[in-house]
């Protein structure tokens, strides 16, 4: 144990020294800490710890039973995912250094497991804590107000539930990994239990549907039926506690729910810790994969991350090209990127639009204030802005294959253009998909604003990507993580340069009432000129930068 404490202590001290000794690393770290600190101070201390002028009921009218069911459903899915994952690859993930130097050593396995579990639990509490105290209030404060002193009724129960689910996953994985037969049986048992729970819900839903004829209400009633609540009792307790925080109504008997959740998490930890199986092998596959992904991420190697995502896919899906070859010279880069995108995309391409469609339906149904729906198209520029911030990272990912890219006998400008075009296709796809979802599913929306903003986003994202890419090329630092932060921090203000003309044109179009045609015309002309300028600069930088220098 002493040796593991020494390891953790020295690593922490060295990390601090490593960051503080270089301004290139220190400045991004201070900026990052500043952003977090600002959010903490603003949301926990500066904003009044009370409801805004409008009560939640005036802004949003989600019936309590729907909110309860939604929370219950999300938590259930989270738990099922955690348990099922144990049978895919195992969840006890260690760093590659542990595999190479600690697994073969004579440090007792239980000491390694104890340190690992302590670290994991601390992470769960930290992540859920950040989500509860910063992200949730930031996102839902205008709609649902939760007093600061009630937030821990979300933080603690959700953390305990996830710890319990993770412990169950680890334990099942350990028990099952001692033999093929045992694995198959355990896998089958878990699948059967999940299917039984699902069947119970559907049976009750069917029963209620026959009585009421309302499918949505029947599903909600089924989820709230006593047998389902009892089968998934830890999730029920957690949901009750979350709703207590949302409604600011804490009943004394809820302390008992909290106590049971605590007991469950401690109990499952003890059971896991007492297992005698060797956990090294179950963790190996995932640990090695995570090590590869981590290395790829540290290097900004999007290609390698994609390859990891491809692992486990069937040979058939990898053997057929989803797109016929086109173009020559630098265009081949675009073809390659599109092929990879289509190959690894699958449900990842569809899922965002399913979520956007669901959010559109929910907004239309539950948001009462028409102004909110009227200005809903502004989420599109927000999505685009978030995406644009990742531009340098995507460029750095492509630069990892510099041995191929720089040898292509074509102009630097055209090579950069193809990489930029690939990202622009992503944005255009996102914008069009979102706009269509909103147009169809939100009849209360401002259609003129929706089309103008969509058009503006599609056109101005092209020069913005080109500008962002310049910093990706300037700070390629494949060995230094601080390069990634520098590129991002410089991109943040720089992408506004090409956005300003678009803002002026769309502002005039909205205020003066210029037709969509002329708005589109000026947007296209301006942004093509800006893109061309940025690409010329990016092309020169590309030819003169050595990405391996970082």
């Amino acid at each position, binding site marked *: 144990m*002493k*040796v593991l404490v*020494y*390891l953790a202590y*020295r*690593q922490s001290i*060295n*990390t601090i020294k*490593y960051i503080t000794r270089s301004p290139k690393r220190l400045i991004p770290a201070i900026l990052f800490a500043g952003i977090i600190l600002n959010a903490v101070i603003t949301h926990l201390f500066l904003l009044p710890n009370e409801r805004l002028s409008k009560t939640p009921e005036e802004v949003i009218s989600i019936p309590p039973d729907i909110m309860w069911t939604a929370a219950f459903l999300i938590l259930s899915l989270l738990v099922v995912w955690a348990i099922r994952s144990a049978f895919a690859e195992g969840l006890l993930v260690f*760093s*590659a*250094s542990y*595999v*190479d*130097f*600690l*697994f*073969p*050593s*004579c*440090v*007792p396995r239980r000491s390694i497991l104890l340190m690992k579990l302590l670290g994991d639990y601390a992470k769960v509490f930290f992540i859920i804590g950040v989500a509860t105290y910063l992200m949730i209030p930031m996102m839902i404060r205008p709609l649902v107000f939760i007093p600061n002193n009630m937030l821990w009724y979300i933080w603690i129960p959700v953390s305990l539930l996830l710890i319990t689910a993770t412990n169950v996953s680890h334990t099942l994985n350990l028990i099952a*990994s*001692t*033999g*093929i037969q045992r*694995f198959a049986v355990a896998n089958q048992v878990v699948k059967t239990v999940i299917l039984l729970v699902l069947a119970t819900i559907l049976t009750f839903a069917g029963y209620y549907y026959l009585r009421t004829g309302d499918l949505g209400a029947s599903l909600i009633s089924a989820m709230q039926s006593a047998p389902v609540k009892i089968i998934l009792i830890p999730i029920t307790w957690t949901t009750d506690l979350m709703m207590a925080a949302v409604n600011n109504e804490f009943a004394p008997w809820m302390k008992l729910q909290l106590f049971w959740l605590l007991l469950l998490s401690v109990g499952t930890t003890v059971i896991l810790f007492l297992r005698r199986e*060797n956990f*090294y*092998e179950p963790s*190996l596959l995932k640990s090695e994969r995570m*090590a590869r992904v981590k290395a790829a991420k540290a290097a900004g190697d999007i290609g390698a991350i994609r390859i990891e995502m491809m692992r486990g896919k069937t040979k058939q899906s990898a053997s057929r090209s989803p797109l016929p070859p086109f173009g020559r010279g630098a265009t081949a880069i675009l073809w390659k990127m599109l092929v990879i995108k289509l190959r690894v995309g699958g449900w990842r391409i569809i899922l965002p639009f399913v979520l956007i469609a669901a959010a559109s339906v929910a907004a239309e149904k539950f948001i009462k204030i028409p102004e909110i729906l009227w200005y809903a198209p502004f989420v599109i520029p927000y999505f685009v802005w978030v995406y644009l911030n990742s531009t340098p990272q995507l460029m750095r990912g492509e630069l990892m294959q510099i041995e191929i890219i720089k040898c292509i006998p074509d102009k630097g400008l055209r090579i950069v253009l193809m990489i930029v075009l690939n990202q622009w296709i992503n944005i255009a796809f996102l914008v069009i998909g979102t706009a269509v979802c909103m147009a169809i599913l939100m009849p209360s929306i401002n259609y003129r604003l929706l089309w103008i903003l969509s058009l503006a986003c599609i056109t101005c994202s092209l020069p913005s990507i080109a500008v962002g890419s310049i910093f990706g090329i300037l700070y390629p630092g494949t060995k230094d993580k601080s390069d990634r932060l520098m590129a991002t921090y410089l991109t943040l203000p720089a992408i506004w340069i090409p956005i300003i003309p678009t803002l002026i044109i769309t502002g005039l179009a909205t205020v003066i009432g210029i037709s969509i045609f002329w708005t589109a015309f000026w947007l296209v002309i301006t942004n093509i000129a800006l893109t061309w300028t940025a690409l010329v600069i990016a092309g020169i930088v590309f030819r003169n930068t050595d990405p391996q220098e970082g």
Partner: protein
Amino acid sequence: MLIVRNLTKYYRTVQALDNVSFSVADGEIVGLLGPNGAGKTTTLRAITGIIKLTEGEVEIDGFSLAKDEQEVKRRLAYVPEVPNPFEMLTVIEHIRFIAMAYNTMSGFDERSERLLHRFDLYERRNDLVLTLSKGMKQKLAIICAFIHDARTILFDEPLIGIDPKGARELKDMIIEAKENGCSVLISTHMLDTAERLCDRIIILRSGQKIAEGTLAELQERARLTQDATLEDMFLTLTAEGSASESTGLPGL
């Protein structure tokens, strides 16, 4: 002494090792050869206890891995093929950490200094592992293997990525370990090195041991002349295995 008996390993339904048995005596260097995917790394990982055996037994100096894991590991050192040392430790901290893990801190300063000098890492001892090149990380892993008093040393492709001086030092150290009575098992594709360094050779193919013996014994087994190299023997024996597998006839 390392004894491996009936090593069998399944990854779910795929058989990675099939009833592999061999031993490495005290003061002996044994080479573990085989084409890619033959099961060499799986064998080494099974010996270190990183992966579990489906069947079989590993014994070091009379201690069984299944029953006395700590005693076995105390006597064992392992150098992985592509080592991933803890990057946020300095070189000297990493070596100290390994020495602490094996409870061999007495005489640490003198031993670590000697090893750092031998592998040209002395000047870099206070640098973070993060700043080392791939070859230097390999050297660090080798130093970590020699920092404690291991009686059995396992190497997985130890010479890949090391400069010529480092490679010479490593070969010298392997020979010194042999002279000190250690059992050394080296998995490698570098047949000329194996030919010069190893007392015996074991050839694996598709998880099975297809040949074992001294160079002379392998020559005889492969029905080759005395001037045949290990490369000739390896190619003949592994091709023989493939042919017998495709025809279904043993030994053809």
